[in-house]
Structure formats: structure tokens, C-alpha cells
């Protein structure tokens, strides 16, 4: 059944679909690399200090 469906599709449609999937993957990869690079940076001390200060104020 699936083979029949595939065979009836025009080659260009199949190629476009495959291309879209590759493009989607490439975009996701680029975005992820960019994002993970930021996420791997050290968090500025001011945030740690702020949390410590907030926590101490409660005591």
C-alpha cells in the first residue's frame, strides 16, 4: 500500500519533501548550536549573588 502511494507521487514531490526535511534539519542544527553555545556560558555572578541575598533575607 505504501509502495503504491510512493510510486504514484511525482519524483519532484518526493525530492522536495526530502529537501524540506534536510533544510529543516540544517536550520534546527544551526539554531541549536547557537543556543547551546549561549547556554554553556558561565552565568554572571550577579545572579548567584542575587539568589544568595534573597535567600539570606528570609532568614
Amino acid at each position, binding site marked *: 500500500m505504501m509502495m503504491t502511494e510512493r510510486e504514484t507521487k511525482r519524483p519532484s514531490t518526493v525530492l522536495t519533501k526530502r*529537501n524540506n526535511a*534536510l*533544510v*529543516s534539519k*540544517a*536550520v*534546527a*542544527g*544551526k*539554531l*541549536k*548550536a*547557537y*543556543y*547551546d*553555545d*549561549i*547556554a*554553556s*556560558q558561565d*552565568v*554572571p555572578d*550577579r*545572579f*548567584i549573588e*542575587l*539568589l544568595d541575598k*534573597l*535567600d539570606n533575607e*528570609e532568614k
Partner: protein
Amino acid sequence: MNVAHDVIATPAINPGPQMSDRDFKRDMMGHLPSLRAFAISLVGKVDSADDLVQETVLKAWANRTRFAAGTNMRAWLFTILRNEFYSVFRKRRREVEDADGLIAGSVAVHPEQHGHMDMIDTQAALALLPVDQREALLLVAASDLSYEEAAAVCGVAVGTIKSRVNRARVRLSTLLQIAGPAELGRSADTQDIPASRQL
């Protein structure tokens, strides 16, 4: 998923089990890197993004008794940050849109200089996306939230998030000029460009 969109605005009737301050603080510190990555990629400027993170930390701490232990703290923090972004930062909307317009204008004026996809870096390309598409893409494709979690963070239907992510992907691939297999081979060796250079 128990992430109410109006987590701050509505008093919690049944906040559920609470965490100790120490546990809350420890968990929040663990989420700071991804919270910051979301802020920077959403806002586009490190200084403004860090102000936003600071506001989020303050707000989250003040509302910590409303956070139910065992639920998704990252999504909860993202929700607060996003609300903060819209209520405070978007007041400077004109400013932001003017900046977007300037970037868009320079791209339009010099298309011949952007023949290579690396010419527009990821940060600049993100800035050119409509903000609703940008946040959806960042939540799902970069922060690895599920469509359901992203929908809860943004307070919209799952289908809306899916369509925003799809549109953002198409737009971003155009902006990055990832046209097809011929370009794809090249994308692999550009992935390790440090974001610091782009910001």
C-alpha cells in the same frame, strides 16, 4: 503539565506541595543557563536579556510558594520571563521594531553581499522573525520544550505553536539561505561559530 499561563497574576488556590527555600534556590540556579539562553536569543542583546533574567529571578523568588514541587520549573521560569518580556520590554516596542526595520532594510539594500548563508548570522536572522514565531521556535527547537509545554508557556493552543514553529523554520532557512543539499554540506562546518561573536 501544570504550567498555568497566568501563574503570577492568579492567586494559587491549591499550590500543591512546596519546596524548601534551599531546594528552590538550588533548582533555580540549575535552570539559569537555559533561562539566560532563552532571554538572550529572544531579546537579541545580552545586557537587556540579563536585566530580564534578573527581573525573572526576583519575581520567581517572590512567588516561590506558588510553585508546586514536582512540576516543570524550567517551563514555569520561562513563563515568568516571557510575561516579563511582554509587560516591560515590549513597552519599548517602537524602539525594538525600529531596530528590526534597520536590520531588514540593510539586508534588502545589499542582497548581493549576502550570497553566502553565513553572511547573516543566526542572531540577526532570529531578530528578523516576528516575535511570536521567534519565541515558539526557541522554546521548541532550541530549548527542547514539548509543543504542549511551549503552548502552556505562551498561553496558546498547541496547533498555534506548531504552525508558528513551522513558519519560523521556513523563514529562518530563507534568512540563513539554506536552500538545499548543495548548501547543507557547508552548514555543518559553520555550526561552531561562537555566539559571542554574533552578539
